[in-house]
């Protein structure tokens, strides 16, 4: 008897939950309203069956529960009833399947006027490629991929020279125009998902998959990787920004083409030395850092990383948070390097400085730290030497108190939360996994033991 009442409560509760709870499909921002319609239809059909079958079940339990003198019916089968039920079920299934297949037909047929954009996945970042004036993407191959050619562009393909390369987690799209997104992976499986667009597809290394949609709402939308891709899977985020055509063009023009990128001059260390005079006040003449002035060691750090940080300080992506006391000191200094060339030059000079190991100042439980560091290895390397391919800087042999502070900043969202900090966001999620200060100290104490 109780079971019948509980069943009844669960049925009513489930239906009420469906209609009253705030958790449902997020508002649509693409053309795929008919996907939402098929979901709605499926809810009605299945909801009907759910309620009817279970109410009948509950009723049977009440009506036919054991009572003295009552005997069950003896009815091994009832062909007529069974055929009716088969027929009705088949009808219900067709009612759901037919619209589903029709909409799938639309999904597999990409409209002719769709513009192609490529999304490239790697552990654990996104980057994008937009065809240039020729409207054609150049060919690529994994074999061409290296530090200078992260997209694996075929250097001999004329179609690729004008491709716009967007090495960052943010893609802009013009509103109202169908897009065919070509999906390519450099390493493992990934999945391109924007919940508001409804469609998703895996990125498979060794092949190119695709999906298409037309953005219909201006705004910012998160890209999530929804195919497990390794330990930092949950931190592989990107963003799609849908905007008016003019804004989109302005954004696109701010990026360089493949040809322009490959012809950039290298930095000039001699010219950088003069500029470095300003830096040496805090960071030391050898770039060895100065704890009293809260300045970390620079020598031995990877050039691409320092370049990006200088750009972030300049643009406010870093050092603009009100609690970032020391970052705010660095930001105006970075603006003194006016041009890209100036940045390249000063970094070229820092690279000539000898790599002097920083003194260890942080202590903690090294064994515990080693355990925690297992989660850092995937990006920063087993020896903490950093890996440009994963956008992870060197941590071993660098200033340890600075590491502690940065981890705390990441954890508290003081660093990495700025929306232009493309790679910091991931680190905020990783730092969040460090539950307390002691763990951070243990971790850094372990990093101190790594070979320099």
């Amino acid at each position, binding site marked *: 008897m109780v079971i019948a009442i509980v069943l009844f409560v669960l049925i009513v509760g489930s239906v009420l939950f469906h209609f009253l709870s705030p958790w*449902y499909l997020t508002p649509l921002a693409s053309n795929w309203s008919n996907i939402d319609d098929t979901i709605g239809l499926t809810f009605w059909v*299945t909801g009907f069956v759910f309620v009817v079958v279970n109410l009948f079940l509950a009723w049977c339990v009440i009506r036919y529960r054991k009572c003295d003198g009552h005997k069950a019916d003896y009815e091994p089968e009832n062909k007529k009833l069974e055929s009716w039920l088969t027929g009705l079920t088949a009808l219900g299934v067709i009612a759901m399947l037919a619209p589903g297949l029709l909409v799938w037909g639309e999904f597999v047929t990409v409209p002719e006027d769709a513009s192609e954009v490529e999304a490239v996945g790697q552990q654990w970042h996104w980057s994008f490629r937009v065809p240039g004036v020729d409207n054609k993407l150049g060919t690529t191959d994994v074999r061409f991929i290296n530090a200078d050619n992260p997209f694996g562009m075929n250097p001999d393909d004329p179609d690729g020279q004008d491709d716009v390369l967007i090495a960052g987690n943010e893609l802009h799209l013009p509103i109202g125009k169908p897009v065919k997104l070509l999906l390519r992976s450099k390493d493992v499986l990934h999945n391109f998902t924007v919940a508001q667009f409804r469609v998703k597809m895996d990125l498979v290394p060794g092949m190119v998959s695709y999906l298409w949609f037309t953005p219909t709402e201006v705004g910012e939308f998160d890209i999530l990787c929804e195919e497990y891709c390794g330990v930092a899977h*949950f931190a592989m985020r990107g963003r799609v920004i849908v905007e008016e055509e003019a804004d989109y063009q302005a954004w696109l023009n701010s990026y360089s083409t493949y040809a322009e990128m490959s012809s950039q001059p290298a930095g000039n260390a001699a010219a950088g030395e003069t500029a470095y005079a300003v830096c040496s006040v805090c960071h030391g003449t050898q770039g060895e850092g100065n704890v009293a002035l809260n300045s970390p060691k620079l020598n031995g750090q990877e050039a691409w990383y320092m370049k990006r940080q200088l750009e972030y300080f300049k643009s406010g992506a870093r050092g603009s948070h009100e609690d970032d006391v020391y970052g705010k000191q660095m930001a105006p200094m970075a603006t003194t390097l006016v041009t890209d060339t100036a940045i390249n030059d000063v970094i070229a000079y820092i690279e000539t400085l000898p790599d002097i190991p920083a003194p260890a100042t942080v202590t903690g439980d090294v064994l515990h730290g080693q355990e925690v560091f297992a989660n850092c290895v995937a990006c920063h390397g087993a020896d903490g030497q950093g890996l440009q391919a994963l956008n992870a800087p060197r941590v071993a042999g660098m200033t340890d108190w600075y590491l502690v502070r940065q981890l705390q900043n990441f954890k508290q969202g003081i660093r990495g939360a700025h929306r232009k900090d493309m790679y910091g966001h991931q680190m905020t999620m990783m730092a969040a996994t460090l539950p307390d200060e002691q763990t951070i100290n243990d971790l850094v104490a372990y990093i101190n033991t790594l070979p320099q």
Partner: protein
Amino acid sequence: MSTATTMHDETGHVPPAEVEEVELYHAKTWLGKYVFSQDAKVIAIQYGCTAIAIGMVGLVLSLMMRLQLGFPNEFSFINPSNYIQAVTMHGMIMVVYLLTALFLGGFGNYFIPIMIGARDMVFPYVNMLSFWIYLLSVLILVASFFVPGGPSGAGWTLYPPQVMLEGTPGHEWGAILMLVSLAFFIIGFTMGGLNYVVTVLQARTRGMTLMRLPLTVWGIFMATILALLAFPALLVSAIMMLFDMLLGASFFMPAIVSMGEQLDHSGGSPILFQHLFWFFGHPEVYIVALPAFGMVSDILSVHARKAIFGYRMMVWAIVAIGGLSFIVWAHHMYVSGMNPYFGFFFATTTLIIAVPTALKVYNWVLTLWRGNIHLTIPMLFAIGFIFTFVNGGLTGLFLGNVTVDLPLSDTLFVVAHFHMVMAVSPVLVLYGAIYHWYPKISGRMFHQGMAQFHFWITFVGSYAIYYPMHYLGLMGVPRRYFSMGSTDFILPSAQGLNEFITIAAIIVGVTQLLFIYNLVWSLFKGEKASDNPWNATTLEWQTATTPPGHGNFGKELPLVYRWPYDYSVPGEDIDFLPQNQPPRGAG
């Protein structure tokens, strides 16, 4: 020859026992009786205990995941690496090492021979080997927790390339041990499976025609056929994967840049692996479901004192589901990057399979209709099963329909769906079945109060875990995420819901200890059970001793005169007629 035999001879039927009792191998030592036993019932209990033990490990791992999801970053012993390792090991343990082993190795071994009136499996020695190889596979799996790098963290689907690359925990040793363990599991299972099939085909007692088999046997029989044919797909993918990992082949591995370095592989296809894996993976769902379907049919019939409704339809539905389950596998791969045109075919076949499945549900409910429902513990679990299975089956129509799957694939909706249909439902049947047959297996009744409590918490609790989880998936919360961080579309209130789910999961998880306590307590302190406490008709309840001894039956095998569902037959004084009860006038 006994007197009973003579009587039948008079009516013109010839009834010798198929296997004489003396032909059985009788162990003389304690070791031979209880450890290296060749008695299917002992092997069944060995299988059952091992499966439940490793299942408890899986349960603890799931609670670890729930703690992280409900209270992100609050517990220092959970980090992204061991979280995903817990996800992987939980999935593999539950699907293969718990459910498959318990349903087929446990229930199959115990009930196939005894229900069809046989003394034992046809190849008892092979049957014993089957268990020991299974145990070895479990030990290898457990060993992977202790190797450098820990167990594999590639997700239970073990997709290449990530399974063997840096950036995935356990890519060095854990993954290899997992594959080797699976290979052993498959070899062990094949040995058992050969036994189950040949036993059903050739060891049935006189009068036990196919259409007089209890649905439990039908379910286990068909599931075994599926498993025998589907597990090779897993073996094939495991072997090819080991070639890629250890010998540098490129079956599944394309050219890749991993951690900034070019690998030596080239040209392989990760999707090829997915095809092979799911060719096993989908029938696997039914390998778990079909025995549950069979057992729940018998439980419903016994406790509603009514013949199962539409027996013939039920048998053919089991066969149809089994056959169809081989042509739906790619519905797990709608967004995998495979040729999207496959979607049309697989969506159609997948939704067709809904028809026989729905018929089974109708027939269960119609068995209760006009019945005489005894709300015993096994019956409560059976009713709970119908409710959760209806829910889980219906959400399958979302994911099977290719268009609807697009937004839902890889979200918590999928997790909620397959837990409802593959975890909660079969596990409710498992509990129902254990309570139902416990008196026969142990000779004691279980403790009613503890069992009641266990039922209510498990049933309501697991519904509270998985029903709301569907809506998190609808909103777009992905699966296999260590933490959500901040997004622009997930409502902050979702975290509250996650906390609720975690608390429910902890309550349900802890309650399972009570179940184990009840099993052990009742073994010593439970009331003595009679031979046939539920007044059931099938042969296992008609044994001379409880628990039945080696050889199951007395000197002579039972003769079967009727189908297993003669409950409340009109004109009879008692409301059940055992299968071996001769018709009036015959004896």
